């Protein structure tokens, strides 16, 4: 087993009386794609918010590359090498696609080490990688939802992260766009040697692309393992998948 790049240890997050995460333990190994699934309200996005520093957990710890990052400000965590996308896209609408991506370069892992012109070049390379270079000088507000999702990905990649958190990048896309997005994710993951955690509801996609799956339900981890193991898990089927045969069919598409 390779080394864990990220360790989530006993993390608990409450919102008033609601326990969004209850003593969750997850190890993420270097170089893998970890799928994070579960019904709405299971705590997936909350977990992302805890890892990326948006929320401070009430209990537990998060380690990234052996260093504790619990409760650090979000911008510091980004600079250490964790980048994320948002489920609800948050482009800087009045900036061009290129400028949006430049922010990622200028304030990511290379923060303070690149000049404006270098940042421009690097951002352009990222846009080429994800196939958005043709829209570089468009305002972000002019993009389609699919393109905005890709821009979220580009901005995250521009930070040159080691760990990438993808929050429902496939939601609301048509099958062709999903296919394209998956290809981009796979390619960039290889090219940049990334570790990826992806929250996803598009089951056939996540079952296909993930090396391992973690299932959250009401803030608790109810299953963990290879896609085929998870699809066979009775608890998971009851809580989320609903139909075991259908779930297994998704896995077999691989």
């Amino acid at each position, binding site marked *: 087993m390779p080394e864990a790049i990220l360790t989530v240890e006993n993390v608990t997050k409450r919102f008033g009386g609601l326990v969004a995460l209850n003593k969750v333990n997850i190890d993420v190994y270097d170089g893998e794609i970890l799928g994070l699934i579960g019904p709405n309200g299971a705590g997936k996005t909350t977990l992302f918010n805890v890892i990326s520093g948006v929320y401070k957990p009430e209990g537990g710890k998060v380690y990234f590359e052996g260093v504790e990052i619990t409760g650090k400000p979000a911008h510091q965590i980004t600079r250490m090498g964790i980048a994320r996308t948002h489920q609800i896209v948050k482009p800087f609408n009045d900036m061009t696609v290129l400028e949006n991506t430049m922010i990622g370069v200028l*304030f990511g892992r290379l923060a303070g080490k690149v000049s404006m012109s270098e940042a421009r070049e690097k951002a352009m390379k990222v846009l080429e990688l994800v196939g958005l270079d043709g829209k570089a000088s468009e305002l972000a507000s002019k993009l389609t939802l699919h393109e905005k999702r890709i821009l979220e990905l580009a901005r995250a990649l521009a930070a040159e992260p080691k760990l990438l958190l993808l929050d429902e990048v496939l939601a609301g896309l048509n099958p062709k766009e999903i296919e394209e997005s998956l290809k981009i994710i796979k390619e960039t993951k290889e090219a940049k040697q990334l570790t990826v955690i992806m929250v996803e509801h598009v089951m056939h996609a996540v079952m296909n692309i993930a090396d391992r799956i973690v299932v959250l339900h009401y803030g608790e981890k109810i299953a963990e393992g290879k896609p085929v193991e998870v699809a066979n898990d009775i608890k998971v089927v009851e809580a989320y998948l609903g139909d075991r045969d259908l779930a297994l069919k998704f896995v077999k598409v691989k």
Partner: protein
Amino acid sequence: MSSFSELKARLLKPTPLLIILLIAAVAVARLLNLTTLDTMTIFMYFIAIAASLNLIMGFTGYVSFGHCVFLGIGAYIYALMVYYVPWANALQKTGGLGIIAVALIAAVIAALVAAAVGLAVLRLRGAFFAIATIGLDFAVLYIVMGTVPFINPEQFYGAQVILPSRCLVSKTSTFTAMFITMALVLATNYLVRKSRFGMGLVAINEDEDAAEVMGVPTAKYKTLAFTLSAFFTALAGAVFYLNGGGVSPEAFDLAHTVDMIVMIVIGGLGTVSGPIVGGIVYYWLYDTLLVHYPGVNLIILGIIVGLIILFAPEGVVGILRRYEFKGVKLREVLE
């Protein structure tokens, strides 16, 4: 050589060109005595305070409604310094640069106040931040009204610090000082806009949470922008009230902030050329209306400003930036 042509290429863009043109125009007007020194000083003061507020309000979107507090702080500290500190008075008598040197002290103090307050207040968003800055303005106003008269009850009646003739300087000196102030704040606007810091500020304006997650140290950047903005506002305030011969609690009047906001909005929020264009238009309107329609001038001005905000909230530069000129997208060259 290459660095020279590079510099030339950089300066030949619309925004730096506009700054250079403005500075040249003022210099020519001064040399040819086209108008009175006072008129020019006040005109430059308008542009300087608009450009100062632009650093926080234009770039980050935070409306610092009580921003006039820094005009007052700058003006009061300056006036009290030249009144009581012999070397400060001697220094300001040496001319424009001497005034700037003394005003810098006042500006640094205002900047420190801004930094301390900013750390606490910039956690607030939107209207709450605006209200907090108004609170700061009133707090400082009442501190001034409660302390200044007691420093010297005979001279500072009603907290007015009217400079005696031994503390006054020539109009030429205040002109030079305001000229330097305006050039400094415009250059700062341009450099900030072109820098990583400026990109971070604009990202904060667009979506603060997304900016933080992307690595922008939002709290630090906002405080820094607020501090810079306060610094230049105080610098301009110090020189302006010196030019007027003294300062009174009127300096803390929120109407001054309204002036600044209206100028930036007319010109274009968050742009570098906006405060220049807005300053010119606003000053011209203000002056024309005052001459031709005295008495109702402010009513007309108010209506015009209302119409602009209703129908062209992006301001002159903001609207221009939507268009292309000879195949060049103006938003790429016009900051």
